[in-house]
């Protein structure tokens, strides 16, 4: 489970002054459910997810991930999550196998447990064909599968996806979305950020609309429709953002 409580991140910019990238954010993601964070570019989605992944530290407030506090136990939080974003690239000079093996070891897995786990993942994701190929020689789809295997190698209970389909072709994007859905079905807690409305409509059990670092509306799609009286998510999004402008 993920629970954010008054989560705030302020950046200090030399010319622009204080920037409240995440501003007093509260939400809760339950296991087995997919929580979508919907917002335009610069809304604060990436910063919010980086805070949950403890890549950044909060200025105020906190969050718990799988029962661990992001401020007091960041290493335990990272051990509980699989983090996938467009910014999490692969080591080009290592093979797909070596990358996954490396992250398995960083998560403390012993080789006796790690290698059967990698074999199973490579089988499930149909990766054996390019197992020993260097990552810089892989296609975008192959790279994305390798990244997925990397995030799953330690079988984390919480998955964090930051715009995971950005820049992918239709086929690669479909693989990623299928994988996210599967994570939810397996009982993992999933938080997923995007600015693509159709992805949220298809996947998410619960949606939070984020704008200017603040969560403006939250609930299941049906609840948002009921609250706004609108059908399409795009219209709902625009109405919510305009109401708070």
């Amino acid at each position, binding site marked *: 489970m993920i629970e954010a409580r008054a989560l705030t991140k302020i950046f200090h910019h030399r010319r622009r002054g204080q920037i409240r990238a995440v501003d007093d954010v509260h939400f809760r993601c339950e296991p087995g459910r997919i929580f979508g964070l919907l917002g335009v570019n610069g809304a604060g989605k990436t910063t919010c997810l980086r805070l949950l*992944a403890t*890549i*950044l*530290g909060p200025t105020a407030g906190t969050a718990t991930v799988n029962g661990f506090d992001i401020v007091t136990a960041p*290493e*335990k939080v*990272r*051990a509980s*999550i699989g*983090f996938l*974003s467009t*910014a*999490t*690239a*692969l*080591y*080009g*000079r*290592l093979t797909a196998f*070596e990358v996954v093996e*490396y*992250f398995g*070891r*960083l*998560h*403390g897995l012993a080789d006796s447990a790690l290698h059967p786990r990698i074999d199973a993942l490579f089988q499930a994701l149909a990766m054996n064909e390019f197992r020993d190929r260097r990552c810089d020689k892989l296609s975008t789809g192959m790279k994305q599968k390798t990244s997925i295997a*990397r995030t799953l190698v330690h079988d984390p209970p919480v998955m964090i996806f930051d715009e995971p389909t950005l820049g992918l072709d239709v086929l690669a994007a479909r693989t990623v979305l299928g994988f996210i859905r599967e994570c939810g079905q397996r009982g993992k807690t999933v938080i997923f950020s995007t600015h693509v409305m159709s992805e949220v409509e298809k996947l998410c059990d619960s949606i939070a609309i984020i704008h200017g670092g603040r969560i403006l509306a939250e609930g299941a799609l049906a609840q948002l429709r009921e609250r706004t009286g609108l059908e399409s998510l795009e219209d709902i999004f625009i109405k919510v953002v305009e109401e708070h402008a």
Partner: protein
Amino acid sequence: MNLRPVAIVYRKELRDLLRDWRTIMSMIVVPVVIVPMIILGVLKVVNLTMKEESKVMLLGGEGSPESVAALRRLNKFDLVPASADFTNLISTKKIRAAVEIPNDFDAAVEGERKTTIRIYTYEGEPKSMQAAGQLEEFFQHRREELVRRRLQERRLPETLLAPFEVKRSNVASPKQVTGVVIGMILPYLMIVMCLAGAIYPAVDLTAGEKERGTLETLLSSPVARTHLVLGKVLVVLTGSLATAALSLSANGLGLLVIHFGKFAKLPLALDPLALAGVCVVMIPLAIFLSSVAIAVGLFARSAKEANTYLQPMLLLAIIPALLASLPGIDFNYRLAFIPVLNMSLLCKELLTGACHWGHVLAVFGSMTVYAALAVAAAVALFKRESVLFRT
């Protein structure tokens, strides 16, 4: 401290780095092939220059065939016929020098009249100075022979003109003599190679990771940031020490080839214990340089920016290393606290066998503190969001 994550990071980073041809170039090809080739090439050119017959113009001397013939027999000069524009020819380096022998030179000498040989040179131009030196040596030798012959003819002792002699006696051992020569070059070479071997890996593992987008992947792992930095510092240190060791071996081998291949006679009586001492005292310096390179690389936004910062750092390290090789700069306890300079001076002392334990402790201690501070700075920077996500 659990060192397993450090070992995991170290093994991965080293493997990753060794698969990059640029690492192979900077760590192996440059110190093992390029640098020795440059040194051998320079020595070869110097050797050829020393052996080259200097082109010298002979002015006058028509009435003094004996002296001219003796000059020709020397086979050190390519004597060219006289020309009125000889000063211009010397200035434009077409000839190295000109020697003017008065027409009545031989007669004047035989008649015991004072006469003058004039040598025209390009002051400061090395080859011209070399030719002038050889000419002066030739005429001085002839003058001494003449004086000796005259003294013998008049049954006078040679001590009449040279009542006493001044002789130098070397009291230093061959190892010390070698130590002085090697002590001027070796610390400089080792420091430059330590830093050259650290720069590329440091840039690749820090700014390079930022650029390739793998840093965020790494930061999402549960390994503590201190462990991540220590793993990276150890890889850079490996690169630094490997480059220095390979360079030392390659240059040592090159010197042996020069010595035993009869290219030049070199003093090779080096104390192996002193050499081992130099290698040991280089370790804290290599840790210091590796950590500074990592810290600078972390601060940079891109590999290009990191290189821009690290090239002046190479200069900053070279200057104290060069200062230490200057004559007259000897070890003292104030200089023991200046990084790089202190190691260079200590290496000089070690190689000449004039080292005191107090000096070793002062330098080793101060460099260990500097190395620890540099590692701490690298760790602190790696924990700063404003540095890791600097845009």
